[in-house]
């Protein structure tokens, strides 16, 4: 397996989807079956390649960057094609290839209007290149390029295949379709963050011996090369870039709109992977390169996370739209992830890592289910739904299971991230203000109760009770083969991670400890 030690395997995981997307554009539109099979095959191949990486990866030294390479890319500015994975990026990379396969399986038979599988599948594959690339990039410019590549496919996915409901938006004279408003809002918010992030990268470049290499910058950063106002400003812009993507309160407002408007698969990918790009950015770039600033900002991040948790839960309680509820629940769950990161302790960041994967799996599944239900019932209004268990027993059962996982039931994947994040916040890194963190912890704990509250209430409104009469003469289809084959793997994964959290910690723990001890000593 020499190919995998010199970075070719890793590059293949990144670029194979892109090449496949290009091939798809060359297949005539009429050959729909061929297009679908080809897309499925290429996503499977990508997943298999990433699975081989799992076996090639040396878990005994998970803190080292492995299986990568460094090739000169833009000489004049000393930006390189530098890639590699460690225990932090590996789980996310595999999650990304895995979710993409499921997204494509689901899309085989459940394409939103206007069908056109060619464009849709090609966009998913381009998106995958952007996501995988972000997780393996070890050069700031490369990271930036991949970070931005995901914008275009997602913009078009929301804008073309999204929700066509017309609504009034404050600030617009005329009524506007949800998809159009949401797609440009998503794009502008993220670009706003990343434009400033790029300025921050350039700042690091000029102070740091004109290198964009993340490992080199980490060396420089931990030896104290970045200090003073400069470092504060750089951390501020990096924070802006990543926090928009996470999204952290109060920069989250694009998320409910984008999620609600996006087609099912779009919401799944957005929730499962795209949000992780932001929190991954904190763990990979912002904290190790600027440890002192991270320490200074940690209380603020903790407070914002706590607000996010409470705000997200309260907003969920106020929702009548099923999909929007799940979107707001993401704000809350990512709040836990960020709270874990803010504690700057091994336990907190491990919690964030498992929380990211678990949120990807669970919320991904929730969006699959709600999307499918919206398609069956032609409504997402929870007031009209009800008795789902009787109408669609399979979907209903899965919804019940996933909601339990999402509220953090012990034994399922969601538990570890929330529980350990609170633990991390109870006892943050030495020198951090414990009052702030413990208050945030209490807020987070209240948040878990609220989370349980809105999810159970949602189940009560949607799943239980008697079906309303309007569905009695409708022919409602329960989950079919394609849907189940996209969902069951996620269910299995939820249970597996819940029972054996070591699946994730085995990879992340050493890497997280090494990163933190390098950044903060001890």
């Amino acid at each position, binding site marked *: 397996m020499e190919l995998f030690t010199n970075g070719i395997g890793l590059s293949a995981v990144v670029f194979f989807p892109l090449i496949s997307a290009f091939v798809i554009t060359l297949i005539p539109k009429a050959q729909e079956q061929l297009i679908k099979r080809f897309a499925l095959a290429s996503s499977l191949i990508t997943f298999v390649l990433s699975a081989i990486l799992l076996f090639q990866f040396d878990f005994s030294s998970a803190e080292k960057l492995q299986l990568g390479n460094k090739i000169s890319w833009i000489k*004049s500015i000393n930006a390189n094609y530098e890639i590699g994975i460690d225990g932090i990026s590996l789980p996310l990379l595999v999650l990304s290839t895995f979710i993409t396969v499921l997204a494509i399986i689901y899309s085989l038979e459940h394409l939103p209007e206007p069908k056109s599988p060619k464009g849709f599948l090609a966009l998913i594959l381009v998106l995958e290149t952007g996501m995988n690339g972000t997780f393996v990039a070890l050069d700031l410019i490369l990271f930036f390029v991949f970070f931005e590549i995901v914008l275009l496919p997602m913009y078009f996915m929301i804008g073309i295949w999204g929700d066509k409901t017309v609504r009034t938006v404050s600030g617009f004279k005329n009524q506007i379709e949800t998809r159009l408003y949401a797609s440009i809002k998503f794009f*502008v918010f993220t670009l706003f963050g990343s434009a400033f992030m790029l300025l921050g990268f350039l700042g690091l470049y000029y102070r740091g011996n004109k290198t964009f290499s993340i490992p080199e910058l980490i060396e420089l950063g931990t030896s104290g090369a970045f200090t003073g106002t400069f470092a504060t400003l750089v951390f501020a812009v990096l924070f802006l870039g990543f926090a928009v993507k996470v999204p952290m309160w109060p920069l989250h407002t694009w998320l409910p709109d984008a999620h609600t408007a996006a087609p099912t698969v779009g919401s799944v990918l957005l929730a499962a992977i795209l949000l992780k790009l932001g929190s991954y950015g904190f763990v990979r770039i912002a904290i190790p390169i600027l440890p002192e600033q991270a320490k200074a900002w940690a209380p603020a991040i903790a407070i914002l996370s706590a607000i996010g948790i409470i705000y997200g839960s309260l907003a969920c309680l106020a929702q009548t739209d099923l999909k929007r509820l799940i979107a707001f629940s993401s704000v809350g769950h990512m709040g836990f992830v960020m709270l874990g990161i803010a504690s700057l302790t091994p336990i907190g960041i491990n919690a964030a890592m498992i929380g990211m994967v678990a949120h990807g799996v669970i919320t991904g599944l929730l969006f699959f289910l709600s999307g499918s239900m919206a398609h069956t019932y032609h409504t997402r209004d929870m007031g009209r739904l009800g008795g789902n268990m009787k109408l669609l027993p399979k979907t209903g059962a899965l919804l019940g299971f996933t909601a339990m996982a999402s509220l953090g039931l012990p034994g399922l994947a969601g538990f570890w991230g929330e529980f350990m994040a609170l633990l991390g916040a109870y006892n943050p890194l030495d020198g951090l203000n414990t009052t702030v963190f413990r208050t945030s912890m209490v807020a987070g704990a209240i948040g878990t109760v609220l989370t349980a509250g809105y999810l159970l209430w949602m189940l009560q409104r949607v799943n239980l009770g008697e079906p309303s009469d309007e569905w009695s003469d409708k022919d409602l289809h329960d989950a079919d083969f394609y849907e189940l084959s996209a969902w069951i793997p996620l269910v299995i994964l939820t249970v597996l991670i819940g029972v054996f959290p070591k699946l994730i910690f085995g990879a992340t723990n050493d890497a997280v400890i090494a990163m933190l001890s390098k950044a903060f000593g001890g």
Partner: protein
Amino acid sequence: MILPRKSKYYVAAFALLGTLFSLAPLVIQWANYTSPIYAFENSFVVDKFSIILKGLFILITYLTFLLSINFIESDKYYQGEYYYLLLSSLLGALIVSSSRDLLTIFIGIELASTPMFLLSGWKKGDRKSNEGAIKFFLLGVLSASLILYGFSLLYGLSGELVFSNIASYLLSASLASSPVVLLSAMLVISGIGFKISIVPFHSWAPDTYEGAPLPITAYLSVSSKATGFVALIILLTKVFAGSGSSWGVILVIISGLTMTLGNLVALQQNNPIRLLAYSSISQAGFILAPIAISGITGDYQDGIFASVTYLIIYAFMNLGAFLSVHLFSNYAGSSDFYEWGGVARKSPLAGVLTTIFFFSLAGIPPLGGWFAKFVVFRSLLGSANSIGIALGVVGAINAVIALVYYARISKVIWMDELKSVNEDKIFQFENPLKVVGVFTVLITFVSGIFPGIFSYLGEVSSIFFGN
């Protein structure tokens, strides 16, 4: 012009072949290049800088011809004169990129812009075309006189025409940052400011762009602008380098205003040509930024590298954007792009091309525009100067604002409903236009994915600055 009417077809072919053929000596010069060659008592130079820019100008003109073929044949235009005038303008641009004295550069600038006065009024029956051409002509004459006045001050001071002599005289007489020289710099900047349409000298551009035949508009916004920038770069770095800290500050302010104003007005446009006109004003602000900041820091080499890289990438993606506008406005028969709903589904190829060009203009990776923006930000932040960083922040905000209107075109053509009037029309995408589309899209992609190809420009700008 001497051919009979029947054989007018050959004119286009001859012009196309001629421009291609003129690339040959450039390639040979590049291959055999050892050191800069001076001619006419140091007033004309052949260095790598000028060779690259000449290549750029020739390619742009070639693509403009390709854009023009069907357009010119579609109406009773004078073909011979059309190509003749464009080629004259090209000659002017070529002279500018090699010129090293006041007279040569003035003749170059004017030779490049005078034919455009005629060409922008080419649609004789069209009031807008006439109006635009008149505005352009009057302001063009004003700008020429401003440049001349600036030059006359320099000549009066030093009694020299050749740049290197003027610069060394100013230095030895310690006049480099005297008020007179600064006044002269301001006059030159104002004069050339009209050509490159920076605020506050931009007001003619939208009207003229809207009235002119579309290929001419494309040429104006790409080649004429590039010519102006090249002249400005040469003059500022070769003659006025000594007073950089003064004009630098003024240009920084102009650059910030140009980006912002162009963008904000572009947001309001529904005419695609006017949108591109304002967008190109805003882009000019970006091109100007590195030169401006290099005046303050004195690191001209980096400023030239960034500006020229931006110019080259901008030239091709902007030509592509004009191609898109040409295709869709012909198809929909409307100069309001909100009428273009869903047309991309009629021709996915044109739709994808349009998306690529406009998002590249917005600076989204991996399309070429991102690298252009990146080098500008790089040189702004590299100045380690608070003015430069402030301009960088202004630029970042503008990059986000610009996205809104660039994305709007893609939104309309992909996401809106197809208008019923457009349903049965057949989409015309002629072969010469396809060549333009494929060529520009390739450059847009390659420059975004392998920006390393621009690395040689760093070396080129060091040679330029060294002689």
